[in-house]
């Protein structure tokens, strides 16, 4: 901002500028930090979480009038207190992580894919539709293969459409992908209306579910998505495609200059992004509810955006951030049930923790400078520039 102001004020002499600046030096101004030390950054993040816990404890004391220590301790119980809960924790973490992994290549390319919801939904829809229409007439393994292919293709197509428009006509991908969500939602509604039962639900078809490993559907999710996570880490960090994505994200002009065909990269990356979302949609149906509803995604297509950002688009960090989100969701839900807290209190807690963490990222990246004494102004100015 300061730079802009100075260039605008060209006719003024330096002395005048200096004079004006001295009188209008703001109380606080913000500058970009140089690299903060690793230890410092970690401490700051831990501090943020501690602060958020303190605020939560105060809220519990004031709003719910319960002992904050026992209430917060129940969160741990609700997440780790039983093998089933631990399985669910890791399985749900895996699903959220997978959606975040799907969105990440697009985000790295600065293509704001807000269409995760829709891409998952069409994947789910295809899986459920195949089960419903041809499940009975073909052998199970073939059905699974068909579901696998069509779900991924459906998700990929849902990603491809906005990608083509972006690549050819530079349309706004945020709006486009958001709109595609609504289309997907209405397609599911239409499907349920046409083929669901009298109440507009599709009865689950557990006979077509993927095989259960270790007494449940959880292990398969965890295993497959762990592999995808590693693969995505390598793809983004160590492959030619990953490099192209970074370059396009940093500067399209640079990409063009060094001979990268930007439209091709956009389309290819969105095929991967959408296809992976479709894959999640398949898991939610064929390894989950065995039915489809409009609420099957549970808003995770949007939550994953936050997971990806907080994880700095790094698949390994994203394991931590998705774990954090699921830990909070599962913990606060249990806490709310046990202490009969208002359901919105759980959402408030999640909001507080995330707010503190995002806030601390700001302080890691930027430095807050307070107004210095007049005699220091010149020195301060030099330091800033």
């Amino acid at each position, binding site marked *: 901002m300061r730079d802009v102001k100075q260039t605008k004020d060209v006719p003024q002499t330096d002395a005048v500028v200096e004079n004006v600046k001295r009188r209008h030096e703001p109380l606080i101004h913000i500058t970009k930090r140089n690299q903060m030390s690793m230890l410092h950054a970690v401490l700051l993040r831990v501090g943020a979480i501690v602060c958020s816990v303190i605020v939560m404890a105060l809220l519990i004391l004031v709003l719910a009038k319960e002992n904050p220590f026992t209430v917060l301790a129940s969160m741990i119980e609700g997440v780790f207190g039983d093998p*089933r809960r631990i399985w669910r924790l890791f399985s749900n973490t895996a699903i959220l992580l997978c959606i975040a992994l799907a969105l990440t290549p697009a985000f790295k390319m600065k293509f704001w894919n807000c269409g995760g919801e829709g891409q998952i939904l069409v994947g789910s829809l295809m899986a459920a539709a195949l089960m419903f229409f041809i499940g009975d007439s073909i052998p199970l393994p073939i059905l699974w293969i068909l579901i696998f292919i069509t779900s991924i293709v459906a998700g990929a197509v849902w990603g491809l459409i906005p990608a083509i428009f972006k690549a050819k006509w530079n349309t706004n991908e945020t709006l486009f992908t958001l709109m595609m969500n609504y289309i997907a939602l209405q397609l599911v509604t239409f499907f349920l209306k046409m083929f669901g039962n009298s*109440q507009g639900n599709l*009865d*689950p078809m557990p006979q077509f579910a993927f095989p259960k490993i270790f007494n449940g559907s959880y292990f398969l999710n965890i295993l497959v998505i762990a592999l995808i996570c590693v693969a995505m880490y390598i793809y983004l960090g160590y492959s030619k495609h990953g490099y192209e994505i970074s370059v396009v994200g940093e500067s399209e002009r640079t990409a063009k200059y060094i001979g990268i065909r930007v439209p091709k990269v956009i389309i290819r990356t969105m095929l991967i992004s959408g296809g992976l979302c479709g894959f999640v949609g398949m898991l939610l149906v064929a390894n989950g*509810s065995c039915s489809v509803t409009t*609420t*099957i995604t549970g808003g995770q297509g949007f939550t994953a955006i936050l997971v990806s950002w907080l994880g700095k688009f790094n698949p390994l960090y994203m394991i931590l951030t998705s774990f954090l989100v699921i830990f909070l969701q599962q913990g606060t*839900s249990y806490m709310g*049930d046990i202490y009969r807290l208002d*359901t919105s209190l759980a959402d408030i807690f999640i909001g507080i923790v995330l707010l503190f963490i995002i806030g601390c990222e700001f302080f890691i990246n930027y430095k807050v400078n307070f107004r210095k004494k007049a005699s220091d102004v010149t020195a301060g100015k030099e330091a800033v520039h």
Partner: protein
Amino acid sequence: MFKKILSLALVVMMLIGCMSVLASCGEPELKGMSESPLPIPAVDSDVEVPDDFKIGFICLHDESSTYDLNFINAVLRYQEALGLEDSQVIIKRNIPETEKCYEAAEELVTQGCDIIFANSFGHEPYIAQAAEAFPEVEFCHATGVTAASADLDNFHNAFASIFEGRFLAGIAAGMKLNEMIEAGEITAAEAKIGYVGAYTYAEVISGYTSFYLGAKSVCPTVTMDVQFTGSWYDVTAEKNAAEALLARNCVLISQHADSMGAPGACEAAGVPNVSYNGSTYEACPETFIVSSAINWTPYYVYITECLVNGTPIATNWCGGIEEGSVILTGINLDVAAEGTVEAINEAITKLKNGTLKVFDADTFTVEGKTVVHDLISDGYFHESETISAPSFDIRIDGITLINELY
């Protein structure tokens, strides 16, 4: 300076305005609510519940939905009556009709629940799955229809004969219409009720038909328009539906959907409203007439008694007026017509002694003809007798469905 003086003057004027409005509010003497003709009965049970007993409840939404609030209040009454600790009664809210429902049931099993109760129709297949996976736990499901055919000993359906409650509420509506006709506000032919429904299936059809028949039993010229919203809880859609009905010259509104959308629209327009699931008097004191509701407490007590005494829980359970499952709120004497309380009390007596049937085959026709149906015998439709959930889905004369999209 001038601006400051101006703003000060404006503030003073607004304060004076507010005070004069407040002062003028207190003028009419409000008669308030009557005693309820069908109040929530006190729990009558001497069951000794063991200390390690636990019961879990799965609710579709939270207290902001009148439907779920009705269930949750019943849970709290039940808990108090049987003297259970909070740790013995676990309520899980905002559980969607997806795999999450199964997960919630599994979580309640993990917490050691002996009985698990789910409250939404779409929960049913997931509750059935859980019943299969955890045969040592009893699973009860409100509004469902598949327990009889599921072949699972620990899976049960339950409902209440709420059509009787709606019939009684319909009488209050008919009396109000009669009052309007007598006062010359409308002609007899203009006595039209508007009804906001969620979906076009039996639970809703049975509900609005019994309500209509209740109104018709006192006001023979009544007709009704029904608008569907396609959602159990959608404030905007329900408000819009109510406003659309008002635009079609409906002079009284009722609803079978769970938000404050329709009652709120009525209060804004000053049109009388017959509510459902509980009183909306607090929010709509100038238009609320009466509300019918299901009291789930008797069922919770029943299943607890069964479990403690080791007797099987009925596969299909339907509570009526006798069990205390069907209740009415008090009647808002400022809005309801004179004599409403007496008329409702009379009908309650007749329903109890069997001389009055809600779906009396002589009181409704389809295309002008008396209806023939598998469930019609002895002169009336046997609602909720074989399966506890409503099954009346006949579209009778006098009721116009504006849209059947849902």
